[in-house]
């Protein structure tokens, strides 16, 4: 653990979700790197990763300083000793972090913090407003075969996420529609509950033409492939709306899974000083504000919603789900030991989800 932040090493290598670390080359207004580089002399290199598994793999391989890990990756990184504890005293803005997140279990182990919260948000239901004149009430439009409001069946016109963590979305749906299974948390499933979730996903396989994996390809699919409903991130929704596509999103009545991302420091980071400078930088209200409008997520510094330091507004935060914190089931890594006793661990989620996509 560091005790003091010294001179920057001149470089910083970050693994991040796409759209998370912008330097203004997609849109000039969204740039929170250039100034940091100028101020600290730390040149930022970003490697984007599309799934949590990929992030873990990149961190295992090494060569990076920071990662914007979601809850389903963070604990694995901690257990694998790929990340090091953070000295929050070296981060002046720590005090401003949302109280609901400060000691969140996905990055705090035995009271030790392994990172700094970055952003959080729900996995929304994105839909085509030409088909759905009003927002769908339930995730059933992507899970159950049915005719959509335009009178045509949903087969081949919905998508699901191409990551094992999506099993939790099925479990969440079952939590509401099959209470007899007794699911308490979509990330803690015993054999029966797990089996029911997989069955639901197998049924869904027949509806899904192609699983989405990459944010931009999903956008193409909504535009060219006739896809009209899918779980998605606010990021795609915002971009599609900005392109004047007939797209909107909603959080259906079952609630939603979501992600809360943490900037974590590699155990063998080559540029720790730049890394601490970056973590401090990420908590500044302007960045949090702009990032949340850009990505459609929520800032981890609540004042960013209101202090007009960036483009975010109070209404915007509400739309992004700032007030739905309790309704969101954040991604965490499923483990064998759980509150029910025995649960199905993550590695089985991985292989079983591959099998489901493979049609088995």
């Amino acid at each position, binding site marked *: 653990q560091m005790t003091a932040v010294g001179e920057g090493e001149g470089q910083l290598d970050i693994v991040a979700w796409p759209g998370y670390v912008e330097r203004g080359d997609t849109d000039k207004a969204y740039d929170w790197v250039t100034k940091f580089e100028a101020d600290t002399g730390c040149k930022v290199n970003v490697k984007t990763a599309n799934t949590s598994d990929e992030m873990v793999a990149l961190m295992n391989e090494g060569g990076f300083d920071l990662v914007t890990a979601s809850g389903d990756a963070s604990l694995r990184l901690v257990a694998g000793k790929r990340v090091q504890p953070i000295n929050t005293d070296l981060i002046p803005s720590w005090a401003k972090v949302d109280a609901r997140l400060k000691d969140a279990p996905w990055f705090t182990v035995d009271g030790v913090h392994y990172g700094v919260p970055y952003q959080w948000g729900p996995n929304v239901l994105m839909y085509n407003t030409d088909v759905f004149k009003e927002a769908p009430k339930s995730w059933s439009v992507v899970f159950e075969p049915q005719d959509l409001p335009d009178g045509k069946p949903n087969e081949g016109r919905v998508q699901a996420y191409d990551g094992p963590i999506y099993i939790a979305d099925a479990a969440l749906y079952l939590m509401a529609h099959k209470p007899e299974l007794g699911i308490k948390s979509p990330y803690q499933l015993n054999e029966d509950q797990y089996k029911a979730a997989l069955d639901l996903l197998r049924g869904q396989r027949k509806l899904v033409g192609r699983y989405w994996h990459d944010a931009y390809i999903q956008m193409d699919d909504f535009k*060219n492939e006739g896809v009209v409903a899918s779980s998605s991130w606010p990021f795609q929704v915002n971009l599609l709306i900005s392109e004047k596509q007939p797209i909107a999103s909603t959080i259906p009545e079952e609630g939603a899974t979501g992600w809360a991302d943490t900037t974590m420091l590699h155990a063998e980071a080559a540029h720790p000083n730049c890394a601490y400078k970056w973590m401090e930088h990420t908590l500044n209200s302007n960045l949090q504000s702009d990032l949340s409008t850009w990505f459609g997520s929520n800032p981890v510094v609540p004042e960013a919603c209101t202090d007009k330091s960036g483009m975010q507004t109070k209404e915007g935060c509400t739309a992004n789900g700032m007030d739905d914190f309790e309704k969101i089931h954040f991604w965490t890594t499923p483990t064998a030991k759980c509150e029910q006793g025995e649960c199905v661990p993550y590695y089985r989620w991985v292989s079983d989800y591959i099998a489901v996509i493979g049609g088995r």
Partner: protein
Amino acid sequence: MPAPAIIQPKGLSDRLTALFWRRPRLLLGLLLVPPLFWLGVVYLGSLFSLLIQSFYSIDEFSGMVVPEFTLKTYAELFRAANLDIIIRTLLMAAAVTLGAALIAFPIAYYAARFAKGRWKAVFYLGIMLPLWSSYLVKVYAWKLILAKEGIVTWAAGITGTSSLLDAVLALPVVGGGSLSTSYIGMFLVFTYVWLPYMILPMQASLERVPTSMLEASADLGATRAQTFRTVVLPLAMPGVIAGSIFTFSLTLGDYIIPQIIGNSASFIGMAVYQLQGTAGNTPLAAAFAVVPILIMLAYLGFAKRAGAFDAL
């Protein structure tokens, strides 16, 4: 005085030449050491270390590799879902090879037997240019052709063949929501991108069939069709096999096309890429990688016996 019968060596290069002459193996060794160091030691060595990896396993929670010898990973490989991947890939590779051979043959045959002079150059460029033009951009172009709102649908709409397209898409297993999310689409794209690799060796081996052989056949009373079947086709076989090495192997290992086209069902290349790159499960990735290695080694052995190496 006549010149001497034996000339005295002058300089190092004369002496070295004499040494090489006395010890031909030495020169051979010198020639072979650098390439063999690279291919034999580094490349083969890394394949071997990959093989070793496949006998390790992965810690399920942290995702770290446990470097202890175990067959657990292979047990994993033989799970039904993974076998599906292998079989799916093999079927696709076989279909693509067959499809490419069928489409390639007329092109190769025409280029080898009938194209002359300038047309020969046109055919050569016509085959080579698609080969060297960016693979990725080509795949994306295909996505546009095959998309639900893409060119095929557009063309079908214009020509009034939409119902035919729908009928094709309604086929079980190979059909799908649109061409770009179906196996048919994937098959088309694979066939397209590997087609030149099939044409070139095929053309080379067809060019080696002497005209006199065809004349002999006609002379003995064979019709064109009979000559084609009994003489041209068998003699072109080494080229077909050589080409199929490429199409088969390239399909076995590709991970980009199945990611962009098709219905998200995994293929060996994709599995290797995802397991190694995104899931960090190097042992299982390695075990998956062993499958195409074994298949290709067997295939190469067969090709060697069929005399296809000369056609490569």
